[in-house]
């Protein structure tokens, strides 16, 4: 018998946006409050897992055509390049810096290069989690 998942699917469509917004909030606020790349990436992959639960694997792949292994590689590359970038300024490997910038809407914000390293962590966490879950889900 074909199950009717209308309630779950409709709720998922609303809730996924809340989860992804909250994960980005955790990601960007990680420098001053609890949060950061790891928990933000886990929460984003949690939102994708909720999509996988409500819909099936093919629908989610059509909606988010992402190769998660390449995503992991990109994240590692970003983390490595932020470390290498410090060589151009005659500083040791993985030296980070920050400065205060006047942004148009947000006002005076401190932009740190550690966020770029965190972006790498974020991508690696999403990539690894989704690779694990999809490979387990595909095996019969």
């Amino acid at each position, binding site marked *: 018998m074909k199950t009717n998942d209308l*309630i779950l699917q409709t709720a998922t469509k609303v*809730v996924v946006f809340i989860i992804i917004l909250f994960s980005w909030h955790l990601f960007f606020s990680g420098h001053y409050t609890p949060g950061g790349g790891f928990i933000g990436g886990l929460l984003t992959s949690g939102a994708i897992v909720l999509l996988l639960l409500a819909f099936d694997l093919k629908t989610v792949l059509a909606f988010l055509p992402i190769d998660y292994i390449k995503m992991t590689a990109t994240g590692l590359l970003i983390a490595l390049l932020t470390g290498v970038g410090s060589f151009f300024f005659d500083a040791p490997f993985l030296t980070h810096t920050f400065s205060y910038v006047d942004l148009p809407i947000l006002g005076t914000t401190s932009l740190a290069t550690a966020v770029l390293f965190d972006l790498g962590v974020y991508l690696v966490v999403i990539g690894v989690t989704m690779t694990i879950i999809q490979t387990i889900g595909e095996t019969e």
Partner: protein
Amino acid sequence: MIEISKFVVGLLILLGSLLSLLAAIGVVRLPDAYTRNHAASKSATLGVLSILLGLFLYYLLIDHVANARVLLGIVFVFITSPIAGHLIMRAAYNIGVPLWENSVQDDLQKARKRKKVDEQ
């Protein structure tokens, strides 16, 4: 002002914890899976919502910080908790968990039988 807000916050948090206690008593005392889930999903949701609302008002009125994450949590729990209850109930019905022996009405069974007759 601060005394009234403390009173309101305390009332909300006390109400929320009492509703959660009521939900726990319902889960222990009620006879079958469906009525237990009924108690757990409804009163526990309202209990958590009251506690979170009290927390939000505490931050807003006493610390003067509007904590948007708590509001988001209220909306999130309000959307997801009844759906979790619905999914658990449906899974229980589909694997054939029996109703309480004094139950008199099972509309879903009737509807499914009618559908089977229509298909034949």
